[in-house]
Each structure stands twice: as structure tokens, then as C-alpha cells.
């Protein structure tokens, strides 16, 4: 144990960070994998916000998408399959000074990680969560995921999957204390960027489901939606995702949705005819568990010793 400097009040040199300051190892995703676009957007958000790389932590589970931290030049935690949330919570709990991002996959988050996901929503700690939803298990080579559409042909369901998919948006909206729920797509860099920027700016658990292409295992999954922007509906509102002109031009279907309206958010999320993108719900007033975590940090050794002494007194004979 050391005693030189403490309580994580570290000196951060002031300097302007360029994109390359956030670029870690060479990504090893398949060439046209949707994850690349997300990585680029995130790096831009970091630059835009000028996040100090050493104060930024990317946490993930296991999966193609969970390789994310390796490709950032920040701190990273590439942990266990399904468990990014508890780790991210522990990191954030007593370190209000850190910017925490979570990169997770549909298997990682919605299957093995489902319990932690539900509870992470409820804890509502300040972190930016990207669900890279390719509706398949990528890393383990094409098994059905909870978000795979019914009838999906996969290695575990060669005759077609049995059940309708979980809708991660509605599930998230169904958990008490949800505070930020958005959806975007990997193939629209502008919307992707604005959404992640908004998510990062939100104080609380910002959950962004990103529809992500896995050309390797489901080459045609979003082909129709990509070729026909009319299959997408853009949610707009003054409190929503910032309206970029090019995005608005692209998507002719749009609805004005107030992200304060939970009931409408759920109704829109339920739609199966079109892909809704934008901000579904946002309430910055929700209880934040990380505020509790930060409530008593930085006690001096003497203060701790005094508290212990008070306890000794109670048990002294």
C-alpha cells in the first residue's frame, strides 16, 4: 500500500485531444461489420467532449462487440460474458470523476446478462451503454440470440428459431427508474453520432440500442431498411436527439415524440412495421445510485481511524 497521492484526484494535463488520441488497437472485426461505424462515432463523441482518455473507461463482456475496449486508447475492462454491468457499476460507484461506457451485445446483455441489465437500469448510474444488437451471436459463430427474429436460421436453430424476439427497448422502458432510452442504427453515422452524444450528455444510465449489421452471419438482416429509408421512422422533439439536416432529409417518416411521455414511448417501441430511431424516453430527475456511491468519498485516514475508534468504544469491556 502506498500513500503518495490519493483519492484519485489525479493531475490531468490540459491538451486538445484529436481522434487518434482515442484510437487503440487495429479493430479485428470483419471488414464490413457494423461495429466499425460505432467505434468511429464513439471516438468522435470523445473528441467532441474532449474526454481525457485516462479518465475514460470502456467496459464490456464477451462477444465481437465486446472487443470494443481494445480498440479505444483509454482504460478498458474486457471482462466476462454477460457481466459488463456489475463491473461498470463497481468502477463508477466511488469514482465520479470517471467517464464510463459499456459496450455489450444482444447475447451479452439480453441473454446471459439479462438480470444485471434489469438492475443496471434501476441503479441508473451515470454511464453510456451501447447495445450492439446484431440479432445473432457473432463471436461464437451464429447461434440464435434473444433478439433474433422468429424463424431465424442459426446453428442452434437450423430449422428456424421458435420464439418471438425480446424487444430491448420495451424491456428497458419496463424497468423502474429507467432514465434514457434511445435507438439508432450503425448505417447512419450522423444519427448514430448525435444519439451517442446525447446519451453521453445525459446524467444517468443512457441506454442506446444500436441496430448493428453482422454481414458475416446475417448478410441480409437490415438490407431492406438500408435500401429503403421509408422503413425507418425518425423520432423528433426539441428534447430529443439533435436534428441533423441530412438525417431529417433522409427519413421522410418522422413523428414528434416527447421523450417525457413514457406511455407513448412504449407504444412506439412496440411498432413492428417500421424501425423507430431517436430518443424514446428521457428523465434526468431519476434517482442515481452513483450519487449515493460518491456521498462519502475522500475521508482522511484520521477520520477513518476516529470512526473505527468510536466502534471500538461500543464493544469495549
Amino acid at each position, binding site marked *: 500500500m502506498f500513500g503518495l497521492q490519493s483519492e484519485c484526484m489525479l493531475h490531468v494535463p490540459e491538451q486538445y485531444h484529436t481522434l487518434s488520441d482515442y484510437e487503440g488497437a487495429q479493430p479485428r472485426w470483419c471488414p464490413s461489420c457494423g461495429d466499425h461505424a460505432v467505434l468511429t462515432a464513439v471516438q468522435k463523441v470523445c473528441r467532441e467532449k474532449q474526454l481525457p*482518455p485516462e479518465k475514460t473507461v470502456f467496459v464490456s463482456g464477451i462477444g465481437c462487440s465486446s472487443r470494443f475496449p481494445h480498440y479505444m486508447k483509454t482504460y478498458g475492462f474486457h471482462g466476462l460474458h454477460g457481466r459488463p454491468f456489475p463491473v461498470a457499476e463497481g468502477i463508477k460507484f466511488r469514482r465520479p470523476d470517471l467517464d464510463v461506457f459499456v459496450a455489450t451485445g444482444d447475447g451479452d446483455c439480453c441473454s446471459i446478462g439479462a438480470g444485471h441489465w434489469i438492475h443496471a437500469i434501476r441503479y441508473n448510474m451515470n454511464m453510456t451503454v451501447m447495445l450492439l444488437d446484431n440479432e445473432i451471436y457473432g463471436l461464437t459463430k451464429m447461434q440464435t440470440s434473444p433478439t433474433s427474429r422468429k424463424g431465424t436460421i442459426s446453428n442452434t436453430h437450423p430449422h428456424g428459431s421458435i420464439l418471438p424476439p425480446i424487444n430491448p427497448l420495451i424491456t428497458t422502458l419496463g424497468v423502474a427508474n429507467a432514465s434514457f432510452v434511445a435507438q439508432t442504427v450503425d448505417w447512419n453515422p450522423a444519427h448514430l453520432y448525435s444519439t451517442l452524444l446525447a446519451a453521453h450528455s445525459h446524467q444517468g444510465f443512457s441506454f442506446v440500442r444500436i441496430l448493428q449489421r453482422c454481414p458475416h452471419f446475417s448478410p441480409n438482416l437490415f438490407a431492406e431498411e438500408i435500401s429503403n429509408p421509408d422503413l425507418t421512422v425518425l423520432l423528433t422533439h426539441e428534447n430529443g436527439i439533435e436534428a441533423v439536416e441530412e438525417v431529417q432529409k433522409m427519413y421522410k417518416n418522422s413523428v414528434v415524440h416527447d421523450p417525457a411521455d413514457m406511455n407513448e414511448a412504449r407504444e412506439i417501441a412496440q411498432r413492428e412495421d417500421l424501425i423507430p430511431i431517436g430518443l424514446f424516453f428521457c428523465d434526468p430527475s431519476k434517482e442515481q445510485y452513483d450519487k449515493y456511491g460518491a456521498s462519502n468519498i475522500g475521508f482522511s485516514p484520521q477520520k477513518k481511524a476516529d470512526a473505527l475508534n468510536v466502534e471500538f468504544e461500543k464493544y469495549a469491556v
Partner: protein
Amino acid sequence: MLNANLDELTTTDNNNSAAEISGIKAKPLKECIIEIVSDAGEGAQKAGQSFGSVSAKMGNGVWTVEIIPAEVQPPARSRAGASGIRIRFGSNKITNMGDEADLVVAFNEQVLYGRIEQDAYKAGTIILIESKWKNSKVPEIKEEYAQALNEFKERGFDVREILMEEECLKHVDNPSKGKNMWVLGMLCSIYSRDVTKAEAQIRHTFRRKSEKIIESNLRLLNAGYSWAAENIELKFQIGSEMKQVPRLVMNGNEAVGMGVMAAGIEVCSMYPITPATSVTHYLSEVFEKSGGLVHQAEDEIAAIGFAIGASYAGKTAVTITSGPGMALKTEFIGLASMAEVPLVIVDVQRGGPSTGLPTKVEQGDLLYAIFGQPGDTPTVVLAASTIEECYHFVILSRQLAEAFRMPVILLTDANLATGVQPFTRPEINLDSFSPPVNQSPWKKEIRPYEWDEKTGISQRPIPGQADGMYVLTGLAHDEESHVAYDSHINQLGCNRRSRKMAAIHKTLTPPKINGDESGDLLVVGWGSTLGAIEEAVSLARKMGGSVSSLHLRFLSPVEPGLEEIFKRFKKVMTVEINYGDEENDPLITQENRRRTQLSWFLRAHTLIDVDFLAHIHGQPMRPGFILQRLKKELGL
């Protein structure tokens, strides 16, 4: 740092001679075991704890242990419902709950049966029993009571009937609420306790209650005291022969909780599970004040993941659980070992396997702690043998976890968890409260796993340190923490992590031997059986037996010198609260005999034929049980 109470303690009447109370000469005793048993909720435990504290304050050695009913919600007046407390106290240090009790106060006859089934009493044990049942309006109860009393007498117990409730009614309206304090008063009289200390204790216990309640309890205490002085011819005196030093008295779970604070830990992440939870109940009350917080996670997996996250981020963390909770932490313990995240894991062992015996003691997690991982996962495993060690070993665990950048599993058990014992008030070391890593700027050229070739030790950067950035991973990785599947890198990483164990081993000294350095029999133990083993060994030695014992605190790496020590004895035998096949069980041979965990471990370690004495009764080891076997082994 000392307080008023302690001044009180140091002026305690240290005299050992028989006192004279109410005209009867009190018989001096070296030590004594008493019990109070009742239905759940009748306050037996509160009375017993107060009695224990008073005795501790009078300079006695004390060990109290709760009697927990087998059933969660047992019906009243049932054998399975026996709830209460045992207090063993004496003029010297007391290290275990002992064998049969000398005296028991029973609130009904059925709970006594429950304790008789546990062999809690012997012929001659004094039974002070509430006798209101003989006047019960329910004929069955009357009958049961009468029958039981006959049987008790036949068993040779010294039965004395007392109309306790009737006595209480003379002082309060509702005796069911305060009978326990009346009993406390009675016991204070019988055992010549300082009644002003008992009063102080009551004031302390009920400090959050109204003055009216306190008054009523004090009234009953004094009533019980006077009644006994006048109506019971039993009078004993237990003096103190111990050096009077400032002491604390608490149970093992409170000691762990205090150890967590003393270790400078900031995050305690848990999910409720018996018998570990009360550590965190305690911490939930007071941790905030020493700059820490308890996190109740959604499950045990999340609890350890959270602690690992906190530790990765430079915050000292502990996770506390018991058997089934340990099972769930398996995967994350592997990650902590692989990615070298310092972490303290406290396992308050209970009876297994599976959900098993949630409230009962066992030592069944030893091999799980050492080997319970897919792949090679170096992990430090230590075990507390006393309540005092519960406190100190948390601090030690943090130090080891950080110095060697790895998970440390601290094993305690249900016996320590609920046992209460005074121990020397520890010194507080301000150094314990330092943050885990030197947070001055990280040198760019140092890699995140810059393994020292000899010791495997490396320094770790934490988020916030510029130039220290790395991506932690549970995949095979090189010194840069880059994922690497090359043969030699995997070999290197495993090797470096393993070397840390050798480095720790080098810092350890051989265990001290209790008794002669060589002889006929060596008894080896670990954990909460320490007191019972040493007591049995010393009794056997007094009987002329050539027997010694040693007790292990470090199980992984195990303390040095064992083979050499074992060779000096004709036979080596462990004592464990664990399962092992008996030699003469049907079908059992030397070859297929499934051995207890420690004996099995020591065989591999020393290549010496280590035998064992074991049970899984869900009960602490008793000195008498051990002595019986020692006598057989030694031909005494």
C-alpha cells in the same frame, strides 16, 4: 484512545477468593458453562449476551454462542425450536464452547429435549426450569411437563423448578417481555456477578428504548437477583487470572466487519446469505462513517463483479458470502486471478453441500477455495481460527491482495460468526487507510503487467493515471495486456501468476507447535476448531499422552515446514468439521476411502499418511469429542 469503560475494567475487582453473598459462601470455580434455552423470541440470547459482557468486564475469559433453532419458524414448545445461548466463562481465556453445560435455565421442557438431543448436558447438570407448565390449563401440556421432569430426573439432572413468570408478575404486568432480565438477575446472583455492571449493560442494550422500558428491565434484573439470593442455595464465584488489558467483545461477524473498516476498505459488495449477512448488517449501520459503503447487489455474481470493478478503479473492495454464494462467484474469482485484480473475498462457511445447513458450521469449502476453478488459478486462502483473527485477517487479506495483485479468500465459519469472545483491543494503524496504489504519474515505459521475473509481482495503473492506460482482459494476455494466444505467452502468464504464490510462501514461517516438537501424535487443524483442539490436546497431555497440535492459518500457499514436522510424529491426524468415510464403513478400503478435505490436501503436500477425525453434525467441535479419540489413539 482509552475510554471510561476501560478505566472501569482496569479497576475491576481481580480477587479470586470466594465472596460471601447473602450469607451463603460462594464456591470458587475455575470455569463454568451455562445455557439459557427458550422458544424463539423469548429473549434468552439477549440475557446471555449481557451475562457474557458482564463476565468479560469482570475480567473473565468468555465464549458465548447462540443456539439457533433448526427450523426457521418453529412452533412454540417444540424440540426443533430450541433457541438460546450458551456462555462458557472462566478465570482464564476461553477458546470454545466446551462440552456439556453445568447449568441451564429453561423456559419450557420441550426445548430442553432439543438440547438433550444435541448432547448438551450430562448427569449432574443443574436445570432451572420454568414450572408454570405444571399448572397449565391444557392437559397435554401439563402431562408433557410432568413426564419430561421425570425423565430429566432419571437422566440424573439436578432439576429445580421455579415459577419464573409468577415472580416477574410481582413486578411487571406482562412478564413475557422481561422474563429474560429476571433470569439474568438470577444468574448474576448465582454466579456472583457485579450487579451494577449488569445494570450498565442493560442501559447500553436498551439505549434506543424508552426510559420506561429500561426501568422495567432494571426492576426485573434486581428482582431476579434478590429472589435468587434468597431462594437458591447455589452460589459460585469465578475470579480472573488474566492480565487486564483493554479488550473488545464481539462475535466473529462483527469482528470481520470491523476488520473491513480497519483495513481501509471502501466498498463492501454483497448479497444476503446466512450466516454471512450479519457482517454486512453491521457494516450497513456504521460503514458510512468511516468512508465506506455497502452495496447490496442483485446476486452474488454481480456482488463480486462490482467489487472487482471497484478494485480495478483503485478502490479497495471486499465481497462477503457463504457456500452457495461462493459457488456463484467461481467465474469471477477466476477473472480476478487471471487479470490480477486485488480483491478480498470472505467466505463464512456453512454446512453443505448445496443449500445444506444454512445456519450451521462446517469447514467444507477448503478444497473449493484452493482448487474450485477451471484452469490454474492461483488464489491465496487463509482462515481465521479465532474471533480476534477474524478482525486481523481482513487487514492481512487486503495487504496480500494488493501486494500480490490477486484475490484472497478469507475463510471463517458459522461457529466464529455467532461466537462471542473478548480479545485485546487492537491498535489502529493509519497506514491501513492509504489508497491501494501510488497514484503519482505512471511511467509510460512500465507495462501494465511488468512481471518481476522472480516473484511474478507487477505494479498496476488505475484509471486516472495518464500513460497507464490498458485494457484488462480475462483472455490469455501478454505484459501489455494484449490478447495473445501464443503458446509461450500463455505459459509465461500462468507461470508469472504462479510465482507469486512461491513468493508469498517465502514470507511464511513454519507453524508453531502446541506441545512437544515430536511425539506419538500430531493433531492438525485449521479454522474455528483451534480452541477445542488445543483444549483436548492439553487434557490428553495432562493424562500423559504424547500429543501435540498445530493449526494452519495459511492454506494456499500452505505454511512451510509441514513435512519435516509431520515426520517427527508417529501419526498425524487432522480434526475437521467435514465429511470423510469412516475406516470401517461397508465397502470402504484404504484405497477408496473418501477423506476429509484437509487430510487429503496434506497427503498430497507431504506424502505422509494423514488420518482424520471428523464429523458434519453442524455443531462446533467439542474438546470432549476430540479427547475421546486422542485417548484411543494414545491408549490412555
